[in-house]
């Protein structure tokens, strides 16, 4: 065990000769006494291959399939429990102790975070070992790191003479794959995803992109049926590509669509006290409707047109004569007005009606809202639109949407529940935007964040409406670094 025990007493021969200095001396040399610990190091792919500093991909399991020959060259770099090797300078069984030093880098997990998620706790206890007969020891699976990224770990070993050796730094990171699924025929798909990769890399999440897949065109994703079709198309494309499929469950999909517009059907607009008949002026009626979502604001809406081929805005038109009687108005007599594609008025030619006074009523379809992105049915699926409000969507907006939607998939904005880090200080939920978002830059405590003033004031990519920011704010980035994505999707 490295220590030599002192005999209880000197031998009789020694006593006759006046004592045995070696036995009586409290510091007795031991046959193994001059064995010293010389190193502790992280193993790197073989029992005899050590590495001073390395990256540990903590979210991925220790399986051959995740060794990609690029960032990950061997299984030792996978998982939460890296292997260690301790060496003494002499063969034999030598006692020593090992512990992980408190990590530096990313701020430590709080006690509440550790209480929620066992993988937010590293192994803090010191453990005792004895070398094998060759004077070395491989420690496998005894020391756990943490699920978050950017934590810099060192292990320390101490021999029985309190000689201390340490490893170099092992830095934790997370890695996941993503694949773009592009609808055929799109003309304004995001050109480069480098900024997306870079933003996540800033928070110790490395994104690996597969070659893009091609999926069937859908001109609009507006209903649950549309979303279901898209989700199914993405699944089919992923499952047909063995390289992509093999990276499940650490795979996110980003589908590029045309519009993500929501139709409000059968809206009625009406104007009373109008005069109709030969020679009468056209009747112009402003297009308004209540929003389909809370707070159901009534405001200007734009007619539904040129979003889905074959779908128009007109449903029917009628004239209700004061005192009774209703006359249908043919579609050909009803036109639209507005700037560009923003058709916010209808114009009714009433000259074909008999002279009278009454009410014109027009039933139309309008755009309720357009979305920048969407989470689809599959747990790993997101989509981003390449067009909105009848125009190509700028790359910056597409990037922002992808970072935002991926943010949701990795667990943002953390609300302090389940396996998540503590609640982000600027987190909000609901209040005009469904889901968990961040109001950094806006005033705290508002009942409704869905205003243009808030959108302009917001400074985080995780704000609930499409702003101009493509980075996590200082509050959110702390949580992003701590997130546990070890289960994948």
């Amino acid at each position, binding site marked *: 065990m490295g220590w030599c025990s002192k005999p209880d007493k000197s031998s009789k021969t020694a006593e006759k000769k006046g004592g045995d200095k070696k036995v009586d001396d409290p510091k007795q040399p031991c046959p193994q006494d001059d064995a010293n610990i010389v190193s502790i190091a992280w193993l790197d792919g073989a029992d005899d291959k050590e590495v001073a500093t390395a990256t540990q991909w903590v979210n991925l399991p220790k399986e051959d399939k995740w060794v990609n020959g690029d960032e990950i060259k061997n299984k030792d770099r996978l998982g939460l429990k890296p292997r260690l090797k301790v060496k003494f300078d002499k063969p034999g069984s030598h006692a020593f102790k090992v512990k992980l030093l408190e990590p530096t880098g990313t701020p430590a997990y709080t006690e509440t975070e550790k209480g929620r998620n066992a993988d937010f706790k590293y192994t803090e206890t010191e453990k005792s070992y004895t070398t094998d007969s060759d004077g070395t020891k491989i420690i496998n699976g005894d020391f756990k790191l943490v699920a978050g990224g950017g934590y810099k770990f060192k292990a320390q070993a101490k021999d029985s003479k309190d000689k201390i050796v340490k490893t170099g730094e092992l830095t934790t990171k997370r890695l996941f794959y993503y694949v773009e699924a592009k609808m055929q025929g799109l003309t304004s798909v995001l050109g480069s995803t480098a900024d997306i990769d870079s933003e996540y890399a800033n928070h110790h999440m490395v994104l690996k992109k597969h070659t893009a897949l091609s999926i069937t065109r859908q001109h609009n994703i507006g209903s649950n049926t549309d979303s279901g079709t898209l989700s199914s198309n993405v699944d089919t494309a992923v499952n047909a590509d063995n390289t992509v499929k093999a990276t499940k469950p650490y795979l996110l999909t980003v589908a590029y669509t045309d519009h993500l517009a929501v139709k409000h059907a059968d809206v009625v607009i009406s104007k009373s006290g109008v005069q109709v008949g030969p020679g009468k002026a056209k009747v112009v009626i402003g297009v308004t409707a209540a929003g389909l979502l809370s707070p*159901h604001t009534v405001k200007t809406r734009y007619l539904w047109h040129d979003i889905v081929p074959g779908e128009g805005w007109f449903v029917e038109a009628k004239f209700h004569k004061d005192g009774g009687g209703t006359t249908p108005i043919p579609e050909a007599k009803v036109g639209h007005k507005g700037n560009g594609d923003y058709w916010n008025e209808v114009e009714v030619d009433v000259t074909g009606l008999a002279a009278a006074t009454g*009410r014109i009523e027009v039933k139309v379809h309008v755009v309720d809202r357009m979305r920048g992105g969407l*989470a689809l049915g599959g747990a790993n699926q997101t989509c981003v639109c390449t067009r909105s409000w009848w125009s190509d969507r700028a790359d910056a907006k597409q990037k922002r949407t992808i970072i935002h939607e991926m943010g949701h998939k990795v667990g943002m904005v953390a609300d302090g529940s389940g396996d998540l880090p503590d609640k982000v200080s600027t987190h909000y939920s609901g209040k005009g935007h469904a889901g968990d978002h961040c109001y950094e830059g806006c005033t705290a405590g508002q009942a409704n964040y869905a205003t243009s003033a808030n959108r302009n004031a917001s400074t985080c990519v995780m704000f609930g409406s499409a702003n101009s920011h493509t980075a996590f704010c200082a509050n959110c980035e702390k949580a992003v670094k701590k997130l546990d994505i070890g289960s994948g999707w």
Partner: protein
Amino acid sequence: MDLIPDDFAKVPLGTFNESACSPAVPSGSWDGVRIDAPRQITLDVGDPVMLPICGYYLVPVLSAMDDSRLIVELTRAADGKLLRGILHEEGENEPDEPPPDDAPELSRESLQGVSTGGYFNIDAQRYLAESLEPDRYAVVVIYAGMRSNPVQVEIIRR
């Protein structure tokens, strides 16, 4: 759960278009709110309570802009208690993409004399703080300051 008439069981609730149970709209120059609901709802053991209301409104747009709350009001026959809830649909988590700042907006002046109308198919229970007990209820919907016709609904538990 059985509904009488059972057409109400086929209407997707939380939708805002014309449905098979949308009420007949009065002809002529009319503003107001019209609703319809099943006259009897029979719940089986374990059934969550649901109260479908299908409605239509045509109201002055300026009034609706000033107060866009759609209020469901029920009066319980047994004790006369008034139950109120406000329409609130959150939707999915989706970053909205507002129109550009220069998209044309209508002025209030241009909307004088204009009415806005639409349909709704909702589950009133979703907006009430308390669960509806078996009883008879008088139901009205209030929107833009206009009260709908009342409808009578009886909820029975089997």
